C-alpha cells in the first residue's frame, strides 16, 4: 500500500504546474550565471585571485565547468529553499484547501501511511531538484567551458584540485546538499500540517531560514551560543568536501545534525497530524 500511496503522491506533485516552477527557475538561474560567466568570468576569476597573482603563476583552464558549478552550489541556501517550500508547503495544507482530505482519509489507509507517503514524495521532489541542479550545472558547464582543475578560494587558503579528483567531490556535495534541502522540505512539511492553506507554510519556512541566516551572520556573543543549534549553519557544510584532507568528523557531525532535524520535524508533524481533526 505504501508504494501505491507514494506513486499517487508523486503523480499528484508532478501533475501540478507549481512543481515545474522550481525546475524552470533553476534552469534559468544556471543558464544566466553561465552566460554571465562566459562573457565576464575571466574578470571575476582574476578579481578573486588578484592577491595571489604576484606570488603564483596560474596556468590552464581554471574558468571551467567545475568552477562554475562550485559557484552555483554556493547559492543553494538563498534560492532553492523557496522552490522546495513551494511544493512541500502544499503537501498537507493543499489537501485542506482543496477539501480532498475527506476523500483521501476515508480510505482504508492509516494517517501515518498518508503522511509518510507525502513526506517521501516531497523528499523525492527535493532530490530531483538537486539532481536537476547537478545536471544543468555540470552538464551545461562542460559544454560551455569544458573541464579542468578546480580552484577553491577560502579565507586563508587556496586549493587546486586535480580534474580527476573533483567529480566524486561534486557527487558527494550534491548528496549533502540534498540532505540540507530535505531539512527545508521537512520544515515546510511541518508548517503545512498546522494550517489550511499553502501560503502560510511557504512564508513561515522562508521566514525561519532568513532569520537563522541573519543570526548566523551576526558575530556577537549573544548569538554565538545559539548558532550551533541553527540548521542553516550546516546546510553549507558540503564545502568541507572541497578541502584536503576532508574533516570527516565535522562533516559527519553536520550530517547527523541535519538528519536529526529531519527526524524531529517529521516526528512532530506525525504527532500533530495523527491527532488533527479534519474540519475542511
Amino acid at each position, binding site marked *: 500500500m505504501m508504494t*501505491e*500511496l507514494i506513486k499517487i503522491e508523486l503523480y*499528484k506533485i508532478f501533475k501540478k504546474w507549481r512543481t515545474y516552477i522550481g525546475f524552470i527557475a533553476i534552469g534559468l538561474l544556471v543558464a544566466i550565471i553561465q552566460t554571465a560567466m562566459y562573457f565576464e568570468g575571466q574578470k571575476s576569476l582574476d578579481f578573486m585571485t588578484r592577491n595571489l597573482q604576484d606570488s603564483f603563476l596560474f596556468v590552464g583552464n581554471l574558468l571551467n565547468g567545475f568552477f562554475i558549478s562550485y559557484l552555483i552550489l554556493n547559492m543553494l541556501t538563498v534560492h532553492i529553499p523557496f522552490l522546495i517550500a513551494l511544493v512541500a508547503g502544499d503537501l498537507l495544507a493543499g489537501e485542506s484547501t482543496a477539501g480532498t482530505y475527506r476523500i483521501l482519509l*476515508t480510505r482504508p489507509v492509516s494517517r501515518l501511511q498518508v503522511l509518510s507517503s507525502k513526506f517521501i514524495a516531497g523528499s523525492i521532489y527535493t532530490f530531483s531538484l538537486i539532481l536537476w541542479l547537478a545536471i544543468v550545472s555540470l552538464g551545461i558547464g562542460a559544454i560551455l567551458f569544458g573541464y579542468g582543475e578546480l580552484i577553491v578560494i577560502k579565507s586563508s587558503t587556496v586549493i587546486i584540485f586535480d580534474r580527476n579528483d573533483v567529480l566524486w567531490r561534486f557527487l558527494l556535495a550534491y548528496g549533502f546538499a540534498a540532505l540540507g534541502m530535505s531539512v527545508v522540505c521537512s520544515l515546510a512539511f511541518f508548517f503545512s500540517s498546522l494550517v489550511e492553506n499553502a501560503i502560510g507554510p511557504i512564508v513561515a519556512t522562508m521566514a525561519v531560514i532568513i532569520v537563522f541566516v541573519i543570526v548566523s551572520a551576526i558575530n556577537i556573543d549573544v548569538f554565538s551560543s545559539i548558532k550551533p543549534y541553527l540548521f542553516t549553519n550546516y546546510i553549507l557544510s558540503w564545502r568541507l568536501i572541497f578541502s584536503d584532507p576532508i574533516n570527516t568528523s565535522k562533516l559527519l557531525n553536520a550530517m547527523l545534525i541535519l538528519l536529526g532535524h529531519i527526524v524531529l520535524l517529521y516526528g512532530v508533524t506525525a504527532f500533530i497530524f495523527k491527532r488533527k*481533526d*479534519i474540519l475542511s
Partner: protein
Amino acid sequence: MNTEEKIIEIKGLTKKFKDVKAVDELSLNVYKGDIFGFLGPNGAGKSTTIRMLLTLIHPNAGTIRLFGKPLNEERALILRDVGAIVEKPDFYNYLSAYKNLEILSRISGKDVSSNRIMEILETVGLKERRASKVKTYSHGMKQRLGIAQALMHDPDLIILDEPTTGLDPQGMKEIRDLIIHLRDEKNKTIFLSSHLLSEVEQIANRMIIINKGKTVVEGHVQDLLNSAGLKVTFEVDDLDSAKHLISQSRWDNKIESITNNKLIFNLSSEEIAVLNKYFVENDILVSAVIPTKSLEEYFLKITVDTV
C-alpha cells in the same frame, strides 16, 4: 429487508470544540438493509457525527462500532466496506474524473477494475465527460462524481451527506431511485443525511432527528409520522351545515381551519373513519377525504420544541 444485524452502533458519542458540545452523548443504531435518515437543523451536529463515523474527527467520548467491530481498533478493515460523501464533493481539480476515481480505487482496499470505474461513471451519467478535468465540472457533476467514488468499490455501508445537493429535479429523482435500488437489489445499508426532509420521508425506513448534538427522536419513519398525527382535509357539499354540526360536537377542538368547502382537522388515523361516518349519519355528503402528513411539519415541531 431489515434484520437485527447492527451495521452502525453509536453509544454516548460526544465531541466538544473548545467549550461547545457539537455532539452530546449521541447514541443510535443502524441495521442491515436500512435506509437510515439522519436529520437535524443546521449546526445540529450531523456533519460532525458523520466525520467521526469516518475517523476524520476524533470523539472526546463514546464508542462507534461498524459491522460489529470497534472503529478505532479495526479502522482499515472497516473502511474497506464503507463508501461516503462528506458534505460538498471536492476532488483533485487538476485531474480528470477518471483519474480521480482511479487514484482512489488504488487505495480502496479492494480490487477495482477499470471496467468497474467506467461502469460507475456510466451509472452516474459522467462517462462521456470522464476525461475532462474536474475543475471544468458543475456542482451537480461533482456531486455525481462524489456518488461514484462512494460506490465504486462496492461497499456494504454507504454514508451519504446531502447527496442530492446541486442536482436538478431529474437528477435528484435518479439519486433517490439509485439509493432505493442499492438497498432493495444490492442489499446495501444507507446512512442518509439530508436537509430535504421530503427526501428522507420518501426513501428512509428509519430515522433519527438530532438537535444541538442530542437525539430528539429516533425510530421508524412511519411510526414517527403516525405519532405526529395527521392533517386531514374533508371536502363537503354543505359547508354551513357541516360547520354547525362540528361546533356542536366533540370534533370542534380538532378543527384547524376552514377554507372554501374544505374543513381541515388534526386527527389520528383511527379518527378519520369515525368523523367521516359522523358526517354521513348527519346527511352531509363528503366528496373527498384527503389525509396529508409531512415529515417537515413533524421535524419543525420537534426541533422547535427542543430549542
